[in-house]
């Protein structure tokens, strides 16, 4: 099953890249011109995200560098450990929704130092793999179309991050137990 899905993932993109123009040519669409026509918008879209992402990443990296993030993690540590969250995994609770690259680096380091088959490594990998970086997704998706008032979207994203975090810990307890 797993091998099959991995094979599918690997084949999917090349097949898609070949299938779409092939089918379009059959439907008499001028494929190359249409490609250029659509691709033109890609650059503008990427550029329009820049202000949003610069604003957000500036605040996040200042937050990390000032030591504020560490202090907050330390202050919620006893509470989270009471709930069965392994101590090594704690920083992920705040890192995951804020920075994708930061949390990936953290998880990679944890897997390296603790060993890939430890309970903490499995919890961390589950958290990293089961959710996306809320602030990044919000910034990029809404930034690309110029939405400035995101209404309740951020609350929903952060709420699902919290639920996902504890769900990951609980599921790992169920499946792997403490080792």
């Amino acid at each position, binding site marked *: 099953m*797993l091998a099959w899905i*991995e094979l599918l*993932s690997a084949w*999917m993109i090349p097949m898609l890249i070949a299938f779409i*123009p092939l*089918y*379009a040519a059959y439907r008499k*669409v001028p*494929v190359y011109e*249409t*490609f*250029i*026509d*659509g691709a033109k*918008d*890609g650059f503008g*879209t990427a550029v329009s995200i*820049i202000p949003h992402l*610069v*604003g957000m*990443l*500036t605040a*996040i*990296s*200042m*937050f990390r560098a*000032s030591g*504020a993030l560490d202090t907050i993690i330390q202050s919620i540590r006893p509470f989270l450990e009471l709930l069965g969250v392994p101590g090594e995994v704690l920083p992920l609770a705040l890192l995951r929704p804020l920075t994708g690259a930061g949390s990936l680096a953290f*998880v990679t380091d944890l*897997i390296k130092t603790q060993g*890939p*088959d430890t309970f903490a490594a*499995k919890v961390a*990998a*589950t958290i*990293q*793999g*089961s*959710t*996306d970086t809320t602030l990044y*997704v*919000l910034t990029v*998706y809404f930034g*690309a*179309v110029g*939405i400035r008032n*995101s*209404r*309740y*979207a951020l*609350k929903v*994203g952060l*709420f*699902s991050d919290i*639920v*996902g975090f504890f*769900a*990951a810990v609980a599921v790992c307890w169920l*499946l*792997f137990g403490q080792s």
Partner: protein
Amino acid sequence: MVNWIWLGMIVVSVIFGAANGRMEEVAEAAFGGAQTGVTVCLGLVSILVFWMGLMKIAENAGLVLALSRILAPVVRRLFPDVPAEHPAMGYILSNMSANLLGLGNAATPMGIRAMQELQKLNPDKSVATPAMCTLLALNTASITLVPTTMIAIRMNFGSLHPADIVASTLLATAVATGAALAADRWYRWTSRGG
């Protein structure tokens, strides 16, 4: 809310920077963060240009519409205010399938195309519509069948069963997505008319 989180992070950073004697690091981080923002966007340029070109072909060939017709009954419940025949539906579906298969760099352009189509239905271009919020909720929770990156990293460090996190990830992501959709529904309901 974004306003307050942003302001809060900056003010708290400066206070902590002063208390911890790390003002220099904070200043450095501000510009480092800005640079990362630009770098990430430039990295998106190639992906967006390529996929948007390919998706234009798909759209003109009628593939986007066909996809939305086939799967619309499933997704229409999540997006009740998007017309079934609208191209937004097709892009929403491509975005969701790409996420599911773990095709991260295809999922983002498709999601952005979906947002652009939803923006055409939006009466106030600077305020998010409920449909946009739902699409965002689906993407922040991001249902993935196989967490390929995590499996690869564990494999790298010599895990005996690198794929044993597939089940735990799938369960956790299902719970998170369920929570996101429930919260989205709740806010959509309570914010109606307000």
